């Protein structure tokens, strides 16, 4: 039996987004934001939006595919998919789910989208204000352990202690994102540069994370269109071929009350080998990387678990010059990412990975053939994917 793989069978043919806003400042309803991003992605792909026949998302996106299909006059709905669990960790998985549907003939044209208007709904970074609490949260919230930052800081603290990682390594990740955002007019932090001194003087949110180690909270929407590789070739843009995708988490990652056996982890230890196996590339082949920064410490552990360096080399590798486009050893988060472009739950990172392959980034890396995205570290399930140019097929 031949190897089962999605490699090269589908491509991202179009990308689109709305303007990005600070949270609570979107002038439009969340559903309208979703529609706008989808229409923009269809226009970019050069297709009639009515020909989209599938929808995939993650983190319980509130914009229901059947409502979207009715609103857009979708000719025929064939795929309606939600990645289960993991919040932003589902970003690459949603593309993988769309790709699986397209590759197997369940659908012909699937849009992956994410829309957020946190002003109209609850914010991510706030604790529960109910008078009582139950289940696993009852073992945490009464101790003041409530927000995502608080939930994951102890993973990073243990990793940094085990491997002697210094705060400067986290700082480098933050500086790279802010640096790249200064070239990107879409970025919410465009015109708001960050330097090392400002980082060092910023307030702690939860040790080991300062203000600039934490993602923003934003409003907006993003979308991308997945189509069969042979059809994508006839469309306006160079296709971004999906080389590999993997999702999941390590053994008993969600063991309650912080009892995951591999605790000081981005959750990618078991996932990354599947990704490279399908993509048939090695970490050294990756030309540019977008790695989801919910918190910089998650990026640190994601990079280690994706094999870019050994944990003991973290301080040497994670210096600003290595991470900055165009000349760095591993250009990272070249649009500004979740820290400084927009927290579109990481889908903006996937759009940037496509732009890098097309040569369209505002901080373009020279001759990109392999473009990688890591979604939502430390949660479960997580996911990551690798896109390639035609030369990689």
């Amino acid at each position: 039996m031949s190897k089962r793989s999605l490699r090269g069978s589908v491509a991202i043919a179009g990308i689109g987004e709305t303007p990005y806003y600070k949270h609570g400042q979107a002038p439009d309803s969340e559903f309208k934001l979703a529609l706008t991003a989808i229409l923009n992605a269809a226009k970019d792909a050069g297709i009639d939006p009515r020909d989209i026949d599938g929808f995939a998302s993650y983190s319980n996106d509130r914009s229901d595919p059947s409502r979207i299909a009715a609103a857009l006059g979708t000719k025929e709905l064939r795929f309606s998919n939600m990645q289960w669990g993991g919040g932003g960790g589902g970003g690459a998985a949603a593309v993988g789910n769309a790709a699986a549907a397209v590759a197997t003939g369940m659908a012909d044209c699937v849009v992956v989208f994410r829309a957020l208007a946190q002003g109209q709904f609850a914010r991510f970074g706030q604790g529960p204000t109910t008078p009582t609490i139950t289940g696993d949260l009852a073992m945490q919230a009464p101790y003041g352990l409530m927000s995502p930052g608080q939930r994951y800081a102890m993973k990073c603290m243990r990793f940094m202690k085990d491997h002697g990682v210094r705060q400067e390594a986290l700082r480098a990740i933050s500086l790279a994102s802010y640096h790249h955002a200064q070239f990107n007019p879409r970025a919410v932090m465009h015109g708001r540069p960050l330097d090392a001194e400002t980082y060092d003087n910023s307030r702690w949110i939860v040790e080991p994370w300062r203000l600039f180690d934490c993602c923003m909270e934003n409003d907006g929407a993003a979308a991308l269109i997945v189509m069969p590789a042979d059809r994508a070739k006839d469309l306006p843009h160079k296709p971004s071929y999906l080389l590999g995708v993997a999702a999941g988490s390590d053994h008993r990652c969600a063991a309650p009350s912080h009892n995951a056996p591999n605790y000081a982890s981005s959750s990618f230890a078991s996932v990354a080998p599947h990704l490279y196996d399908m993509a048939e590339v090695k970490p050294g082949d990756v030309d540019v990387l977008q790695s989801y920064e919910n918190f910089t410490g998650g990026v640190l552990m994601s990079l280690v678990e994706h094999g870019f360096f050994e944990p003991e080399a973290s301080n040497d590798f994670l210096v600003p010059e290595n991470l900055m486009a165009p000349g760095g050893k591993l250009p990272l988060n070249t649009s500004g990412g979740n820290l400084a472009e927009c927290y579109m739950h990481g889908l903006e990172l996937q759009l940037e990975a496509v732009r890098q392959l097309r040569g369209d980034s505002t901080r373009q890396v020279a001759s990109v053939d392999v473009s990688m995205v890591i979604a939502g570290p430390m949660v479960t399930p997580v996911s990551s994917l690798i896109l390639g140019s035609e030369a990689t097929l």
Partner: protein
Amino acid sequence: MSPYLPKGLPAPTPESDGLSAPYWDGTRRGELMVQRCRDCKTWIWGPEWICHQCHSFDLDWTAVEGKGRIYSWERVWHPVHPALKDHGPYIVVLVELPGADNIRMIGNLLGDPMQDVPIGAEVEAIFEPHDEADPPYTLVQWRRV
């Protein structure tokens, strides 16, 4: 003893299916109750209906000694709950219990919120009653020994 954190945080209650009720009943009595598989003796925490080693549903609730080691920690500065507004930094610790196969529990580290927190340091459990809460409950906190 006054509680480590200000009043007004959500009160813990067992699930509607009662899974964690023996734990919360135990803390009221000053006992640290955790699960252990009757068939293969695996320690299980947090509460679950099945043994993840042997798939037995026959789980016992066993009192363990409140002796642990700090596995990880964090100092929280930015409040995300109204009850913690204007409250200074506080320390959350993840404590492993060597007497129960290193299962881990979450609590606060009592004492100076600015103290150094060495990973691996020995700690003991301190029961912190919240008798005025509705419903009343008791938290398990930790203190360096």
